[in-house]
């Protein structure tokens, strides 16, 4: 208990106590998180205006459409507002009355985002002109106005007067075809981090929405995609195992196959598997098969070399012993080599499963994009990294937890190894043994030995 009995934290070649190990494992995750939070929340990032209400302008300075949620530097935002005011000063009707009506509808809709955040309108009503019409009336009559600027309030009143003159209720056949005034863009000043550095809280919130299927990912349903990705990994890994493990066993057991196969495999593993992408598409089409194929191709050389080496590491004395006990060549393989390497083979496969994961994202880009990669790719392309990071974290977490589980499960499967000594593994093994229908308890009665000569 006394402090001096404690080992140093930095004793060379000593392992740490259980408590310390746990603490450091926690730290290994907390420290990067802290670093991320530190960088994200440091007051070094400029503030920008986040649009809450947007318009379009004819000005050449703003050649693209800005929507609520977009960011702008303050001076540019001021120029944007000025450009819209300029447009309003000389309202021009559209080329046709229909085009003007269309523009007017868009102006009606421009209030929707702000109304949704205020709870005046539900999100599914953003394109419901009857509801929007009503909203305009409500605001124009002064019932709701808190987040709307006085300038816009005046514009709303002016527009509403024009609208009401045509029809007090929304009527698609009787809709104003004189140009309405655009609402002046509104926004809030907030910290604008680079797109690739969303703050932790933003990622958590976005991830929560995405995983619950509540965000605008639309057809990119996370869990469905996750299932697809898991299947690609599982299939690729399964095929690589049924093809690779027997080859590796042969290489590890017989010098003949080792010399015949391993040099080429060693050469092949340096060739970048993604370079075979087009070939895989030509061979396997554009759906799941080329993706599984890439995971297979990327993992196979590693597996063969690793498992062959593991097989070679089997204590040759065990083979000697088995031979003196009468084992023939076939029995040596089935009764000694295979069971002998199984715990290490399991470990190798666990590591190789990690390898397989590293190929996933490249694989899923082949042909028709699929799985989680489609989310990463399309969202990343639109700079929506707050959608991308939760997916990356999901992949990382899946790999990490799978690995932790498999490492623990090794003790359950192989109770004769050192890991088999852990209490939880022993407990699980006991439970498994209870449900093992093949288990036979045999009683025995020692016979008396033949009399000595």
């Amino acid at each position, binding site marked *: 208990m006394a402090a001096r009995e404690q080992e140093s934290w930095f004793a060379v070649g000593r392992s740490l106590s259980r408590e310390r190990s746990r603490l450091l494992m926690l730290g290994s995750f907390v420290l990067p998180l802290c670093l991320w939070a530190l960088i994200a929340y440091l007051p070094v990032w400029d503030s920008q205006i986040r649009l809450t209400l*947007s318009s379009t302008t004819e000005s*050449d*300075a703003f*050649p*693209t*459409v*800005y*929507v609520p949620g*977009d960011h*702008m*530097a303050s001076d*540019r935002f001021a120029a944007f507002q000025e450009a819209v005011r300029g447009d309003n000063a000389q309202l021009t009707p559209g080329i046709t009355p*229909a085009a003007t*009506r*269309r523009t007017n*509808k*868009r102006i009606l*809709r421009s209030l929707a985002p702000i109304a949704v955040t205020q709870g005046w309108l539900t999100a599914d009503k953003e*394109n419901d002109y009857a509801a929007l019409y009503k909203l305009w009336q409500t605001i124009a009559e002064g019932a709701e106005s808190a987040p709307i600027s006085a300038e816009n309030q005046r514009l709303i009143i002016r527009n509403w007067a024009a609208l009401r003159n045509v029809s007090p209720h929304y009527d*698609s056949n009787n809709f104003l075809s004189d140009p309405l005034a655009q609402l002046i863009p509104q926004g809030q000043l907030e910290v604008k981090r680079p797109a690739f550095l969303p703050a932790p809280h933003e990622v958590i919130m976005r991830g929560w929405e995405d995983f619950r299927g509540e965000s*605008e*990912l*639309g*057809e*990119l349903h996370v869990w469905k995609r996750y299932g697809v990705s898991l*299947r690609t990994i*599982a*299939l690729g890994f*399964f095929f690589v*195992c*049924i093809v690779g493990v027997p080859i590796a066993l042969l290489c590890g057991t017989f010098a003949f196959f080792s010399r015949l196969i391993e040099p080429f495999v060693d050469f092949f593993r340096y060739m970048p598997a993604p370079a075979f992408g*087009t070939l895989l*598409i*030509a061979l396997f*089409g*554009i*759906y*799941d098969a080329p993706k599984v194929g890439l995971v297979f191709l990327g993992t196979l050389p590693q597996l063969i070399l690793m498992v062959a080496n593991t097989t070679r590491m089997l204590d040759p004395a065990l083979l000697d012993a088995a031979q003196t006990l009468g084992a023939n060549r076939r029995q040596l393989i089935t009764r000694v080599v*295979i*069971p002998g390497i*199984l715990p290490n083979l399991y470990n190798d496969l666990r590591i190789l499963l990690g390898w397989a994961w590293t190929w996933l994202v490249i694989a899923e880009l082949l*042909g*028709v*994009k699929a799985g989680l990669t489609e989310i990463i790719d*399309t*969202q990343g*392309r*639109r*700079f929506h990294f707050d959608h991308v990071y939760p997916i990356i974290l999901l992949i990382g977490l899946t790999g990490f937890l799978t690995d932790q589980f498999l490492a623990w499960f090794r003790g359950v*499967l192989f*109770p*004769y190894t050192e890991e088999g000594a852990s209490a939880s593994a*022993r407990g699980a*093994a*006991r439970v*498994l*043994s209870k449900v*093992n229908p*093949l288990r036979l*308890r045999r009683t025995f009665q020692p016979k008396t030995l033949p009399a000595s000569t």
Partner: protein
Amino acid sequence: MSMKIKPDSVLITITIAAFTLLGSSCSKKETPTTSTPEPATPELEPTPTPTPPPTSKGEMLTIGYSDWPGWVAWEIGIKKGWFAEEGVQAKFEWMDYVASMEAYGAGKLDAVCMTNGDALVTGATAKPSIGIVINDYSNGNDMLVAKPGIESVTALKGKKVALEEGFVPHLLVLKALEVNGLSDGDITIVNTPTDETPQVLKSDEIAAICAWQPSSGMALKQVPGSKPIYTSADIPGLIYDCLFVTEESLNARREDWVKVTKVWYRIVDYMKNEDNTDDVLAILSARVGVTPDEYEPFLDGTHILSLDEALVAWRNAPGLASVYGSSEISDAFNVKFEVYQDAQDYKAYFDRTLTKEVAKAMK
């Protein structure tokens, strides 16, 4: 103490688990799925479809389409179930543009949506094809976007422009240089995938990028003050966007392709009706993953050809008003700039009879 799992039983368990997975995936592959598994939202669904005419036997037609507005429009036919109504089994595969052409070149698609110029490139380098539907011509969506301070194409002289070499943006830039009295040697082209151009425009070395929507719009937003200095609206008809089919598929299943053409003109009719604009925007923007408001200008930059306009474009005439004339110009450009070696027989890349057949049936 007595617990023990035989190594054999471990292997068996693993094998069974894997085969279960394998089985589930195989069974999934066998059931034909449409490219968009989610059913259309109820309000988009038309009145219950009458009994569809007998569907032609044979496999699904697989068609690659990508995020060009004129092609995303196929989504309307997919969501509304019009292919089934016309009695054709068509499976649209949502892909990146270049990936879709690669898959077509690898022989894994029956048809792919391409520009007339890219069809020539794909035909010269991988697999020829026959255009049967003219969806649109680009009318502003293809943009040469320059950094703030660069106001004209001539100001690009000696600077670096990022674009995807050998494809539409390349053609547009070469045309822009020609119109402004420059040659291809006056700028340095940096080969960049189109969907990465918005990021690339942010880098200091690049003066301009050339891309189509939504990448071009994204680039405008990424670099405040950047401007389109030359767009396809300056030279309408340079880029026709079409549906290109393999020769084998067209010969074997011409009837089905006529039905696909028919669906296209149902889509065009639906889009031309102003009342449907909100619905159209909702469908198209959802496919691409932007808001309907952001999507609206994309449609303005794409001139969807009505059936009558298409019949005009199908006339064999020199100049950009004809898809043949436009292709002739593209072919000359491609040979001149060594995109490929030998001039293509561009007339063999088109078959206008399907559109004419549909036109006849509709009148």
